């Protein structure tokens, strides 16, 4: 366990980037490079692509969650007019495997169905209608096997096994300080059931596979991680990686849902394309997308936390179970983040966290913005509020007494946070924006049918990939100076709506001292940049930006001497700003960067440079959870104000005030857009987004039944940006995509609890959950009791039953 952070780590925290003599575009609001084409409707997503001879794919899927496959009859499917191929597992040229980390998930099941939506056969047909009609006609004889849908039950001995090796996928732990409840005067115990979430990106999953005989293939995919898709396709086709080219299409939202899952439709399309020799389009209808794709993991979290009578946390025990669903997918990585995030940004002398991952026959969990942290944050912030109440302290005051800060900056894994630790700043700024003191000083009618409440929550977010994923934490960039002075940038991380193109453009323009409009960033293609890992963990701007800065540095070893010659100065004196190369200290001696580019071109000087980034090695012990799980951390604090209709149980999130420690702003509109979108997505998860599973089947796979927030539901959002020089990535920036969501639902929960005066330990806070929590206090308690017999209780729903 690192006892002392070496000075060098702290200093080199952020590569400050090249010296910038004028402000440049950094932190500004210049037009996003992708906005104009998108708003005009001229951006071509994968569903907008078509090629001559192109076929359409469909998949025959299992309608039940657990069964043995006794027989599979494809004759009727083959007979459908327009069908060109119906494939079963035997016809996969390479490995029948799509598991990302564990080899537990086949592309097509052969003997055993483990979840609703398991693929049995693939169809390619001349029309989409024919393909899905044929898929429905694939006749599977399925013999039921007992299923398990509760992750806690799944871990108890003697129950049905999802996989032969047992239902416990893995256990993670954090152990810190002496065990026990010494000096705790107040102890709180609670059991939280935190439900999953559907990503609900507006563009469904989709890809286009274009074969070149059986020797190589191009995949154009809506995805976050082209290199994951490349690996998955190479594996099912039995091809070397170099024979699989994956180009990221403009991608209509991801939120984690296009991290791991797109490998599956891509593998399907690739297998069909090789079998037919024709391009194959696979765009999932919304219902199939929602039924078959990964979800945010449901979790069951048991807490026992204690504080002394001065309101100082003494110990925290967390026993969390993560419902992986039928396949492990990336659940271990999600659990790693959940495990070290379970205590929040608090200084606790004694910590015991256990996070277990359970296989069940539910839809499988995957990446989703926050990656396990939102669930444990929801629980931690609920418990902190309980302890504050028990200690008779205001929730802000209780948090102030326990927050990590510049003096107490050792997190539960023993890692020392880099200074400055901006927890108090974020708390104070969010509380001020929300008018916390004024709100609580105002009298509120105790008998009003609609009750108001205000709640607060914080998150400490480990930026970039966890220690366990460090082998993936590298990134590649290419910068090409064109003969006219414009600049091409290629990176390995994707634009999925979050603004990575704008961020990369800003970073390159800042580093080269040119106008952002002179820089064109093109979406990733696995043949133009090296494997840059996934676009996840709020690492997009960081990983691609660091690689761009490295590429610019290398380009300048060739550019600066040419500029120096044109300017008649030494190369060390060259600085780039405002589109010109100029002599440091004598800005009137300058030449346009475009003119330098023309000269470089005329002299045939190499005008392309590559850049590389890899995170620094860290120490971490997975057995004890001790060490440095993440490179650096960001703080977020949200304050929510809600109005709750006690009779109907409807929660309205009126206003959210969000304070974020972001290091440095790269592009202000993109940053604010991330925060606003994250808050609303978190508020939706908190209140209306219920994954209703019945024996493992999603019974609400539509936007009519699965309710994401509309413009009429979105709260007013106030934003405070806290900048600092302490740590981070390019120019000192930290990731924000996930911190934007993580505390939102917890703040909403705490606000609702304040409004109603009863604890609520299930998410989401749907009307039935509110009514159930009110119990006898509900104005029509007897109605709720009668309905209990007809509907699943919120607890059951949250557990995914």
């Amino acid at each position, binding site marked *: 366990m690192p006892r002392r952070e070496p000075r060098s780590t702290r200093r080199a925290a952020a590569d400050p980037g090249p010296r910038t003599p004028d402000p440049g575009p950094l932190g500004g609001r210049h037009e996003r490079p*992708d906005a104009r084409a*998108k708003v005009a409707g001229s951006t071509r997503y994968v569903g907008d692509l078509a090629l001559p001879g192109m076929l359409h794919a469909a998949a025959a899927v299992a309608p039940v969650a657990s069964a043995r496959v006794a027989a599979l009859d494809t004759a009727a499917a083959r007979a459908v007019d327009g069908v060109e191929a119906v494939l079963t597992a035997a016809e996969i040229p390479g490995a029948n495997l799509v598991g990302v980390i564990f080899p537990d998930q086949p592309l097509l099941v052969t003997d055993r169905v483990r979840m609703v939506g398991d693929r049995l056969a693939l169809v390619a047909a001349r029309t989409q209608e024919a393909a899905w009609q044929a898929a429905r006609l694939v006749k599977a004889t399925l013999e039921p096997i007992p299923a398990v849908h509760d992750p806690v039950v799944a871990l108890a001995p003697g129950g049905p096994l999802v996989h032969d090796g047992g239902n416990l996928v893995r256990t993670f732990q954090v152990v810190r300080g002496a065990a026990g409840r010494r000096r705790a005067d107040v102890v709180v115990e609670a059991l939280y059931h935190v439900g999953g979430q559907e990503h*609900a990106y*507006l563009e469904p999953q989709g890809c286009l596979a274009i074969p070149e005989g059986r020797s190589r293939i191009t995949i154009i995919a809506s995805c976050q991680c082209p290199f994951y898709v490349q690996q998955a396709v190479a594996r099912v086709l039995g091809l070397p990686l170099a024979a699989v080219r994956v180009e990221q299409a403009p991608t209509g*939202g991801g939120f984690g849902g296009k991290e791991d899952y797109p490998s599956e439709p891509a593998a399907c399309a690739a297998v069909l394309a090789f079998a037919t020799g024709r391009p194959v389009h696979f765009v999932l209808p*919304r219902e199939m997308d929602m039924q078959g794709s990964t979800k945010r993991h449901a979790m069951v979290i048991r807490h026992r936390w204690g504080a002394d009578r001065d309101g100082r946390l003494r110990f925290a025990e967390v026993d969390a179970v993560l419902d992986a669903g039928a396949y492990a997918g990336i659940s271990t990585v999600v659990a790693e983040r959940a495990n070290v995030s379970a205590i929040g940004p608090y200084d606790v002398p004694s910590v015991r966290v256990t996070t277990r991952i359970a296989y069940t026959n539910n839809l499988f969990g995957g990446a989703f913005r926050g990656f396990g942290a939102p669930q444990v944050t929801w629980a931690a912030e609920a418990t902190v509020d309980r302890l504050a109440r028990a200690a008779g302290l205001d929730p802000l005051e209780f948090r102030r007494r326990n927050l990590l800060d510049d003096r107490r900056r050792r997190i539960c894994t023993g890692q020392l946070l880099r200074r400055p630790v901006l927890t108090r700043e974020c708390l104070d700024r969010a509380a001020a924006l929300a008018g916390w003191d004024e709100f609580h000083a105002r009298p509120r009618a105790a008998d009003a049918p609609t009750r108001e409440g205000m709640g607060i929550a914080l998150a400490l977010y480990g930026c970039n990939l966890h220690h366990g994923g460090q082998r993936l934490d590298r990134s590649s960039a290419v910068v090409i100076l064109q003969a006219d002075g414009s600049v091409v940038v290629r990176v390995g991380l994707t634009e999925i*709506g979050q603004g990575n193109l704008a961020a990369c453009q800003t970073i390159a323009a800042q580093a080269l001292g040119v106008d952002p409009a002179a820089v064109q960033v093109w979406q990733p293609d696995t043949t133009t940049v090296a494997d840059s890992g996934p676009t996840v963990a709020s690492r997009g701007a960081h990983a691609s930006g660091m690689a761009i800065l490295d590429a610019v540095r290398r380009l300048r070893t060739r550019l600066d001497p040419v500029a120096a010659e044109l300017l008649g100065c030494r190369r060390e004196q060259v600085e780039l700003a405002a589109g010109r190369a100029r002599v440091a200290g004598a800005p009137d001696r300058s030449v346009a960067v475009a003119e330098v580019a023309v000269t470089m071109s005329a002299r045939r000087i190499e005008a392309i440079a590559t850049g590389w980034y890899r995170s620094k090695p860290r120490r971490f012990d997975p057995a004890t959870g001790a060490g440095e799980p993440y490179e650096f951390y960001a703080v977020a604090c949200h304050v929510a104000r809600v109005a709750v209709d006690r009779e109907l149980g409807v929660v309205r999130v009126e206003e959210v005030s969000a304070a974020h420690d972001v290091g440095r702003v790269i592009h202000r509109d993109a940053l604010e857009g991330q925060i606003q*979108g994250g808050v*609303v997505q978190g508020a939706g998860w908190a209140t209306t987004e219920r994954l209703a599973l019945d024996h493992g089947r999603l019974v609400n796979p539509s936007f009519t039944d699965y309710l994401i927030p509309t413009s009429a539901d979105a709260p007013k*959002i106030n934003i405070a940006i806290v900048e600092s020089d302490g740590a981070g990535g390019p120019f000192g920036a930290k990731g924000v995509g996930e911190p934007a969501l993580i505390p939102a639902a917890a703040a909403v929960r705490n606000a609702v609890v304040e409004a109603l005066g009863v604890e609520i330990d299930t998410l989401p806070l749907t009307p039935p959950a509110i009514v159930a929590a009110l119990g006898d206090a509900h104005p029509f308690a007897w109605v709720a009791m009668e309905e209990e017999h007809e509907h699943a209780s919120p607890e059951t729903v949250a557990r995914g039953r």
Partner: protein
Amino acid sequence: MPERITVTLTLNGARRSFEVAPGRRLLDLVREDAGLIGAKEGCGAGECGACMVLLDGAPVTSCLVLAASADGHEVVTVEGLARGGALHPFQEAMVTHGGVQCGFCTPGIAVTGAAVLARGGDAADRTRLLAGNLCRCTGYAKVMEALDDAAAKETADAPA
């Protein structure tokens, strides 16, 4: 029922005829027959609004409209919102206010927003009228800012 029927409509200001199957959706006519890919299919069930087009000036989810029912009517897609080669003021405001993220819902929002502006009303009306267009990226804040800004400019530019 005939194999194909003729649908004649005004599409983005031009009179056009298409031979379509009776069950063809207006969305497919626009995207596949006319090649206007701006309208998107997000759900195919009239829930998300990504396929919005204007039918005689009113926003409709074109995935739920039969192409045949547009016969003799006027259809405007996102491609037809531009005025004199420039983006519609709401589209321009979406760009300047940062209201565009992944962009998949954006054409539908542009179409609905244009109709909302034409209709008039206050900020609360606009928020309510845009509720048929789902967006998962922006949290709507910058979209509504753009719409409010475009509405304010429209009012300012209106002849007294």
